[in-house]
């Protein structure tokens, strides 16, 4: 792709998510779609994190743990300590990143299925911790979290108080999509810079990477921390939207789904997790009408998809481009 094509497609994408979608929704009156699309945006942020760990050659089924942790950090800071929502957002991301450094240092030495299984277990650990710790309020969870207040810098109100808004759904949508754009821009830049190549070198051969002087342990932890940061931020906004967080808000199923979003979109493509999340989430929602056959049809489609497109949806675009 040439530079101008790239810029045009980014502009088109931004126009769609920030202008076309809100306009279409207000015309059609389907305001419920805001919630769906906000969820897709947030889930794709968390999935982008998982994708990044795939990029260094690790199968991460533990993103649910960080999303849960992010949600709780934000909720506790807002409810118990009276913080405004906005500073809790970076706080949630950073505490997840810090936790992931501590956890990552030992477990990132594991490879293949071992890492996958340990991270899966990590999601369970997070849930059990949320149940057992005194500050998380056990199974009852944290409820009635106030909506995000106004954010102002030097007296200038940048973001209005969500509680006073006529349409808080739109506000959440814009917040989630803006963050999604930023996160994917970060991943895109990361992958297309030399750092991305270094990550790829880890994925392809860690021994060789260390023999050419790459500090593999450091790079792995950095990538994992960025990944967990994304998970924490997504979890924090989720808690703010639903105004509640429970130990079961993010479980093993969610962790598996984050991973599936990446697979479905394609592990070789930065925007794979975004597309994967969109398709999986909407696919699941559309199938709601099939009632009790929902899961059956959903899983059958997934199996069929794996059989015919085992390298993800975006591999289809890549092969047609090659042929054409």
């Amino acid at each position: 792709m040439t530079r101008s094509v790239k810029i045009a497609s980014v502009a088109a994408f931004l126009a769609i998510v920030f202008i076309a979608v809100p306009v279409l929704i207000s015309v059609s009156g389907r305001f419920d779609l805001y919630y769906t699309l906000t969820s897709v945006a947030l889930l794709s942020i968390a999935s982008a994190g998982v994708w990044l760990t795939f990029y260094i050659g690790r199968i991460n089924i533990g993103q649910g743990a960080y999303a849960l942790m992010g949600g709780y950090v934000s909720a506790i800071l807002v409810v118990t300590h009276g913080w405004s929502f906005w500073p809790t957002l970076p706080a949630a991301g950073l505490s997840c990143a810090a936790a992931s450094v501590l956890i990552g240092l030992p477990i990132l030495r594991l490879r293949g299925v071992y890492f996958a299984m340990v991270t899966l277990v990590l999601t369970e650990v997070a849930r059990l911790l949320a149940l057992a710790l005194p500050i998380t309020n056990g199974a009852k969870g944290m409820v009635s979290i106030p909506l995000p207040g106004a954010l102002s810098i030097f007296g200038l109100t940048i973001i209005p108080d969500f509680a006073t808004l006529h349409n808080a759904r739109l506000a959440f949508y814009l917040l989630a999509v803006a963050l999604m754009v930023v996160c994917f821009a970060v991943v895109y830049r990361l992958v297309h810079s030399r750092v991305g190549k270094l990550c790829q070198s880890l994925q392809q051969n860690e021994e060789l990477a260390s023999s050419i002087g790459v500090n593999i342990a450091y790079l792995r932890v950095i990538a994992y921390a960025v990944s967990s940061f994304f998970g924490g931020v997504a979890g924090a906004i989720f808690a703010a939207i639903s105004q509640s967080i429970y130990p079961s808000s993010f479980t093993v199923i969610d962790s598996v789904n984050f991973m599936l979003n990446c697979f479905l979109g394609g592990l070789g493509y930065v925007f794979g997790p975004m597309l994967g999340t969109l398709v999986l989430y909407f696919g699941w929602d559309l199938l709601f009408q099939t009632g009790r056959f929902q899961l059956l049809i959903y899983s059958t489609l997934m199996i069929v998809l794996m059989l015919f497109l085992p390298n993800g949806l975006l591999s289809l675009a890549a092969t047609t481009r090659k042929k054409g």
Partner: protein
Amino acid sequence: MADLLEVSALTKRFGGLVAVNNISFSVREKEILSVIGPNGAGKSTLFKLIASFLRPTSGEVRLKGERISDQAPHIAARKGVVRTFQETTIFKNMSVRENVIIAHHLRSRASLLGFFLGTSAAKADEAAFGTSADEILVLLGLSSLAGETARNLPHGHLRALGIAIGLATNPSILLLDEPFAGMNHDETMRMVAMIRRLRELGLTILLVEHDMPAVMKISDRIVVLNFGQKIAEGTPAEIQNNDKVIEAYLGSEDEAIGL
């Protein structure tokens, strides 16, 4: 000539097995030194110890007087001890040129964050790496394959790529793990010429090898191992006439030692 790399009293035990037993020798600057020995003599373990891929049970390796044992492999590489791999270990999904560019890691002046943000230092680095990579590819005769995905390279070129990756790190001493393994006569001769050219460029080379004729041809000095111990050290001529060496190789065909 001064000693560049010193191996002193190096020992490695795996459980009850002593794979490398109290081995000492040194490599001089701009020298080609080969370590040979029958199968299971401990060559491979010694190689990994020197490259810091294994930690010694006792003893140490020093480069220019500085201890490099017990460090992570990337630290050893940073200090100038860089290894190639016996198997065809490469970044298989990158192009040949990308393989060499990425291997310039140690020469980068910009930080990870700098590369992420695309600072001017990072851009300068990238440009320099590109130029240097192209030079290395020319040197190793890989220019025409620069754009090829590494996994599609024919066998002989893979080994050259392995050496190109090693060179890109700008090492003080390059450790070559069986550079002639699986090569026919012509390929071996080409590799011998290539290694000599590297030395002419000022590189010190330590290689571990089976192929006797090639070792005899290329080495300034040879260290012979047997059952984890050093049994001889000297010039090719001295080694060829050493009784202990002949005894160690007894049972293998004479021509294998190049007699």
